[in-house]
């Protein structure tokens, strides 16, 4: 079989069901590609034997017709998801010896569906970053231009799917960590509504913002994965009590009459012209398909970035306290006493960006500052959320670019945290409001770098969002573009 790595999940499904290839062949093919392209540094951990064992089991299930839609198809997991018996680092030195004793719910749901785990993908340390440069395990290269970053924090997953090292991958999104790297790497990435996907076993960054989602070639593939990933989990108190979803069955509706909202302020300052042009073209395409455009306002979203940089670090500062060198993870070799052991273990184990955010969060929560920062930011969060409620009275979906620019070069922003943070200016509002959002390929800039189109839907309207994305992909072939060196 040729070009297995360029195929979508739906295409791989038919390969498997036609007997054109086995799950084992698929696994071997992707394992080979991971090894052959290890200079991308997309993976932190690969366990070939384990992968092949799972593939063999999937082949048995397929032969006995016991499989589900995804049985036998390989995928990669972001290294933020705990995987029983497998190293789970979260991109950090502090977990460089953490063999998780249990599976995250996302992992077990996908495994139960028969999917085969290829390995654990690289990521920004504790998902704190927009370029994958904060990973203790090294930066990941963007397959479209290896001098550029893949985006982050799910940079390894994005690069892996983009370069055909995995047909799909899981990611997590706290402020854009699925959508921004998806945009930078030219793939499709979905952040579901908060509460759709269980957070159990997903190492927490900012609990009230974190949400897991699929990263794939197409919206159709993302829908297939989401159908399995979503569901109530009794181990997660923020998990939504929801009926089983079937987004895959909601993709064939015409978008005739669809009202697309454009937040004016998102198209003004700070947006690269080449990105703006490509998005304009996408808007025209959607109009041709029958959609109408309405201008909307999300005034409070202008403060989304500062709001986010209070709330996320505050929650993170507390979430990361458990990494203390007592029960698991890195413990300093030399120390004077208990306090010193804590400080040294944590200081050796965490990288600078993580420390920076722990410090901001600790400061924002400390006595005397709580009201001015944390409480204030929570109120702004409410205002940002209210803006969306109002906007969705005027439109069915909100469209913008995913990022203000294409993937930037490595080291371009590492010395300027603020410039790095502003990368997430279009993606953060959806996290604060808990809304579903997607990034899908909208074309390439003149230098051949991918540009992402961003859609935000009302709460729990993933079906509508995925349908629009799928219809767009039926009318365009940007999602078919493949980085030349990895074809």
């Amino acid at each position, binding site marked *: 079989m040729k070009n297995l790595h360029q195929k979508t999940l739906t295409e791989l499904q038919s390969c498997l069901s036609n007997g054109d290839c086995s799950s084992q062949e698929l696994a071997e093919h992707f394992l080979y590609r991971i090894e052959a392209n290890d200079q991308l540094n997309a993976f932190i951990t690969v366990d070939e034997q384990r992968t092949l064992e799972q593939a063999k089991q999937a082949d048995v299930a397929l032969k006995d017709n016991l499989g589900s839609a995804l049985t036998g198809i390989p995928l990669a997991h972001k290294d933020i998801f705990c995987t029983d018996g497998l190293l789970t680092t979260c991109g950090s030195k502090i977990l460089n010896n953490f063999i998780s004793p249990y599976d995250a719910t996302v992992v077990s749901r996908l495994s139960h569906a028969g999917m085969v785990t290829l390995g654990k993908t690289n990521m920004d340390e504790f998902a704190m970053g927009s370029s994958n440069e904060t990973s203790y395990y090294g930066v990941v290269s963007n397959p479209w231009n290896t001098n550029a970053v893949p985006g982050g924090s799910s940079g390894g997953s994005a690069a892996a799917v983009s370069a055909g090292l995995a047909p799909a991958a899981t990611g997590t999104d706290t402020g854009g960590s699925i959508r921004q790297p998806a945009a930078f790497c030219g793939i499709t990435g979905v952040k579901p509504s908060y509460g759709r996907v269980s957070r159990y076993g997903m190492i927490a960054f900012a609990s009230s913002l974190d949400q897991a989602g699929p990263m794939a070639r197409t919206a159709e593939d993302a829908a297939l994965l989401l159908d399995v990933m979503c569901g109530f989990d*009794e181990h997660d*108190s923020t998990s939504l009590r929801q009926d089983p979803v079937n987004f895959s069955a909601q993709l064939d509706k015409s978008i005739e009459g669809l009202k697309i909202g454009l937040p004016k302020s998102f198209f003004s300052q700070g947006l690269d012209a080449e990105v703006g042009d490509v998005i304009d073209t996408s808007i025209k395409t959607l109009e041709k398909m029958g959609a109408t455009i309405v201008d909307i306002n999300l005034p409070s979203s202008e403060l989304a970035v500062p709001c986010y940089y209070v709330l996320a670090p505050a929650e993170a500062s507390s979430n990361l306290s458990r990494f203390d060198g007592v029960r698991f993870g890195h413990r300093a070799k030399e120390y004077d006493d208990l306090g010193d052991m804590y400080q040294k273990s944590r200081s050796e184990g965490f990288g600078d960006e993580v420390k920076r955010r722990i410090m901001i969060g600790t400061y924002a929560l400390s006595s005397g500052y709580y009201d001015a920062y944390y409480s204030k930011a929570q109120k702004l969060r409410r205002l940002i959320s209210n803006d969306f409620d109002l906007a969705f009275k005027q439109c069915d979906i909100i469209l913008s670019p995913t990022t203000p620019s294409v993937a930037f070069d490595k080291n371009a922003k590492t010395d300027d945290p603020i410039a790095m943070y502003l990368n997430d200016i279009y993606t953060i509002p959806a996290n604060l409001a808990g809304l579903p959002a997607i990034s899908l390929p909208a074309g390439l800039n003149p230098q051949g770098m991918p540009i992402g189109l961003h859609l935000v839907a009302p709460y729990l309207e993933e079906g509508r969002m995925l349908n629009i994305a799928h219809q767009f992909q039926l009318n365009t072939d940007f999602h078919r573009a493949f980085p030349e060196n990895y074809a």
Partner: protein
Amino acid sequence: MGSVINYPGWEVVIGLEVHTQLKTKSKIFSGASTEFGLEPNTQASSVDLGLPGVLPVANLEAARMAVKFGLAIDAHINRTNVFARKNYFYPDLPKGYQISQMDLPIVGEGKLTISTANGEKVIGITRAHLEEDAGKSLHEDFQGMTGIDLNRAGTPLLEIVSEPDMRSAAEAVAYLRKLHSLVTYLEICDGNMQEGSFRCDANVSVRPVDQKELGTRTESKNINSFRFVERAIDYEIERQIDLIEDGGTVVQETRLYDPDKHETRSMRSKEEAHDYRYFPDPDLPPMILEKSFIDNIRQSLPELPEAKFIRFVEDYKLNEEDATLLTSTRPIADYYEQVVNLSEADAKVTANWITGELFAALNNNDLEIQQSPVSAEQFAALLNRVADNTLSGKMAKQVFTALWKKEGQVDDIIEKQGLKQITDSGTIESIVDEVLTRCTEQVQQHKDGNEKVFGFFVGQVMQASKGKANPGKVNQLLKTKLNQ
């Protein structure tokens, strides 16, 4: 009730924070068992250990128990209440934060009435909130290291915070006893202080009687018996007064009570960072309690100590002192009522036996009534043998001692020790006749009007019967014969 020590010129202000471990089967945020005393860390689940990625799921029963307590102290129940994180580092606190409640606790303001030397007093309860217990640090030497056991981590606690309404260590103890009795009555806490199920921190300050504002307070921790509460508080009062009288000032700090030395000492290690950075726990949405949930609990509340006291006085004709003693804890009240129901004896007589013989034995052996070697069934059987005149009071005490030593059942002991009382009139009459015939001199004295000599005859008859003759019958027969 302990003695009230007076500190002339000073007023003492005491508030208590009591941590009660709730008697749930599983922990407050995980499905691990709360059983006490098992091998270290065998009940520490991934959630209790704070492994990366795990999440808390709250225990309904803990909420139910907290509401039960709230209703019993006539408190406001916050139908929307919120879990918050209290952030600090300590090896027995796995996540680096404790899940507790801050701004919106499940139980709001309530009150508890205590008896003091000067009559009844109402102690305000500020709040009671749910939180998770920490693990334990074991300081035995592990090559100079400390061992951490996280079995206790995640055990549900209800922290009950009082107003600073108490004015002496004795009042503090009375409040604590009342609270202890209440939580065990409600069956929300086993009340076992040795095992740490009911622990107390005391906030103590002193001020000159003419001073309006409160003095600086210290918090004494690690007080795990009623006796220690009194000692720790009195120690702290004296320390503070001495300090101020010597021209010093009291520092607001946490102090640890050392029961061996009967003193409190400063806990330096907890000094440094007192900034807990509370914020609502994003892993746990607000708890919203339906009105029907609260109403159901209200309807199923057990009889509370006050109501039981009134009923005991009315139904069993007990005096207030006995009723107080017999309703002081639920196990005592249950024991008493079980004996009353099982025996033919008068309820008042039963009360005398339990508050007398049984309590003395329990006290001497430092036992709670639940640990009594004499069961309620055995006690009832014993009182039945008194009621049917098989045993005299003195013999019954002998049988009680044997029961206490687990020498068998009541009737076996009577049989074995040959303790059967002689109630047969004919047998007693022949003994009486024998005595009267033998002691002609004393018979004459009686005839001459010396009534006191009557006691001599009783003694002689009892001696002759080896103490087994029924005293009532002996009296009756002697009177008849001597007056013939």
